[in-house]
């Protein structure tokens, strides 16, 4: 086929394109994924029994703000990495700053404890399942986000995959907070962060293969 003929064909396929289309598609996908995760939390894990009291307290919201902020940085990075010629550094900077701030607070908390209290804080009641559960919960959102990203134009597949994983992990961890009763900076900084990071790693590996176009 000659290039002129192709251009005629493409001209015949021209219709108006909406503004901020990538963000819209990613947000719709994330909303659909969140519904799936919410159903999983309600049916598979169950709400934490003291949810009403927790909602009235401060740490529930601090934890939610931390994971949601990481998720938001991930979303921002995904949206930018889905568009050619746009740098994701601002989004990465936000994610890094949120992470650093939370880790510093957790270090202060952890170092202020004596040895046995610190061990109790590190282990909480669910350290053996927390990270794994977050990674599992992130999977539906990650799958949808990668599918949407494939329709965008990620020119850096590994980075875009990592951002998709971090975004999915952050969102999943926030919803996981409805189930998980852990309430120390130390625990969240360790196991929640690890869950989000692993999800990012899974996204990076998948992205390398899936985000080709």
């Amino acid at each position: 086929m000659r290039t002129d003929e192709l251009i005629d064909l493409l001209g015949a396929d021209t219709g108006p394109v909406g503004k901020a289309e990538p963000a819209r598609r990613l947000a719709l996908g994330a909303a659909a994924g969140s519904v799936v995760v919410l159903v999983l939390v309600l049916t598979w894990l169950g709400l934490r029994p003291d949810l009403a009291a927790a909602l009235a307290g401060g740490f529930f919201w601090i934890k939610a703000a931390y994971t949601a902020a990481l998720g938001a940085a991930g979303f921002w990075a995904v949206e930018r990495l889905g568009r050619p010629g746009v740098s994701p550094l601002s989004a990465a900077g936000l994610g890094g700053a949120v992470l650093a701030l939370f880790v510093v607070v957790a270090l202060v908390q952890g170092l202020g404890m004596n040895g046995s209290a610190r061990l109790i804080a590190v282990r909480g009641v669910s350290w053996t399942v927390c990270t794994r559960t977050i990674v599992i919960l992130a999977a539906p959102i990650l799958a949808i986000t990668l599918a949407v990203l494939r329709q965008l134009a990620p020119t850096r597949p590994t980075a875009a995959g990592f951002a998709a994983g971090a975004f999915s992990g952050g969102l999943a961890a926030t919803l996981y907070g409805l189930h998980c009763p852990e309430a120390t900076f130390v625990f969240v900084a360790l196991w929640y962060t690890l869950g989000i990071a692993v999800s990012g790693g899974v996204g990076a590996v998948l992205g390398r293969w899936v985000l080709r176009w």
Partner: protein
Amino acid sequence: MDELESTLKPLMLDGLDGDAQAHARLLKLLSERLRAYFGRKLSAGPADVEDLVQETLLAVHLRRATYDRAQPFTAWAYAIARYKLIDHWRRRKIRVAAPLDDVVEFLAAPAIDADAGLDLTRALSTLPARQRALVEDVKVQGLSLSEAGRRGGLSEGAAKVALHRALKLLAERMRDADR
């Protein structure tokens, strides 16, 4: 460079608003630029260059929703062209590693026009009959989309959807052709 940007960007903006003529003109100007760019980067010859030009044009067209109107157009288009070039090299490496009989390929290679792409022609031949007929009617016969649709028993809206699907499929099959 600035001149290119100031020519192409308004065309892109009009195209995004649905102006088919501006969009086709943009792709025409861009194809010249891409041909020069890939020609400098590839030693393989005109057929490969044209394949890459066509693959990039398809990508630019199908993924134009990822262009932000506040962004320089040339930066966006260049990032796509560069990605397609790197992707081409990556796929070539896989291909070279596979056992290949060069003589057979040499003898089988048909003579080609300077601006004709082989991969796209091959991809077109793998489309479902209905989509292929629609593409052929618009491309070769120069029929309008509604006329071509009517020939295939499709409403204009259905023809539009079918053409868009066909183009997406073509873009995918073009990449597969290298494997």
